[in-house]
């Protein structure tokens, strides 16, 4: 763990691309690109959140009534699942940084399992709503709710659906990283890819942190 000797015995030239001067520059460039992408993701999601705020402004009573059809306990469960997956992801990154490949691989697979748990819970939530006829937009055939329930559930499906899509993409990338990690590709020199996937995964968690109270806990 001592940072002075962590990189000893690892050939940096193996990982350094020819257009970078050293690993510090290469890693910083990679992370800068990731942070710019994450900034863009936040701005993209802020459009969806703004739609939520506008609709809630217009139909406060609809939101109060309609959100009772969402099970806040399942939402809370998914919050815990995602936060735990964020912890395992952070530990995976730490594993790569400290040349602990066993910890890296194990924590990556734990993250993937938790991501699947999240999707399974989401699947039960969605099918329960479909059974009640709660479908987005003009397909809404659900219970009578004051105002415009189709607007609330349209937002619900778009917000959680977009977030779910990010989870699915995250699972794909995580599986790829885990398979690479099993081959021993990552170490304290070559870890920026794991870190960037981690940053993406934490952002997915971060968006859910806002979605949970806004959709499930309307009061």
């Amino acid at each position, binding site marked *: 763990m001592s*940072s002075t000797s962590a990189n000893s015995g690892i050939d940096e030239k193996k990982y350094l691309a020819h257009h970078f001067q050293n690993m510090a520059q290469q890693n910083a460039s990679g992370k800068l690109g990731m942070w710019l992408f994450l900034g863009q993701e936040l701005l993209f999601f802020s459009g969806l959140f703004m739609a939520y705020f506008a609709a809630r402004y217009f139909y406060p009573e609809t939101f109060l009534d309609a959100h009772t059809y969402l099970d806040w306990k399942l939402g809370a469960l998914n919050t815990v699942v995602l936060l735990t997956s964020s912890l395992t992801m952070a530990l995976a990154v730490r594993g790569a940084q400290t040349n602990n490949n066993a910890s890296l691989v194990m924590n990556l697979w734990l993250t993937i399992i938790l991501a699947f748990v999240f999707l399974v819970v989401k699947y039960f939530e969605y099918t329960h709503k479909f059974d009640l006829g709660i479908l987005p937009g003009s397909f809404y055939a659900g219970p009578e709710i004051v105002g415009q329930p189709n607007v609330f559930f349209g937002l619900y499906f778009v917000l959680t659906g977009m977030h779910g899509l990010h989870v699915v993409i995250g699972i794909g990338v995580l599986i790829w990283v885990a398979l690479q990690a099993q081959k021993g590709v990552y170490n304290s020199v070559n870890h920026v890819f794991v870190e960037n996937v981690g940053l993406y995964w934490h952002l997915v968690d971060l968006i859910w942190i806002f979605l949970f109270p806004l959709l499930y806990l309307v009061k």
Partner: protein
Amino acid sequence: MFAKFRKEVLQRSADDHSSGEPHVLPLKVYFIVFASLMVLTVVTVGVSLLGLPPVPSIIAAILVAAVKATIVAVFFMHLIAEDKFYSVILVSTVFFMLLFFGLTLLDMDSRGFKNPEESLEYWQQFSHEKALTEEAAPE
């Protein structure tokens, strides 16, 4: 306390940057952060059960979420030990998000749809007119 901790973290890995040595946070930090996020999740649910009026309730919910998000960004996303430039990107993004939310809400607020009945009437009228124009001009 926070500044001291940051200094400590940076000092530990400040010796050699040219080789791309990662800044490693102590293992303990991750578990403390995780525990505090769990506590704050309980707080999120608790705040919604307080029976606050709508506007304070949504503000409280967003504030708790913002604290959680900050903790995730600072520790899980390693901003505490990284080059400050990444924090600048995040903070400026959040600034523009707030600008976007703030100006849009201000605009809506100045149009006089304060109460739900009025807004409902407006949108019903709007969709009715839209339906009429669509009828008048069939494909």
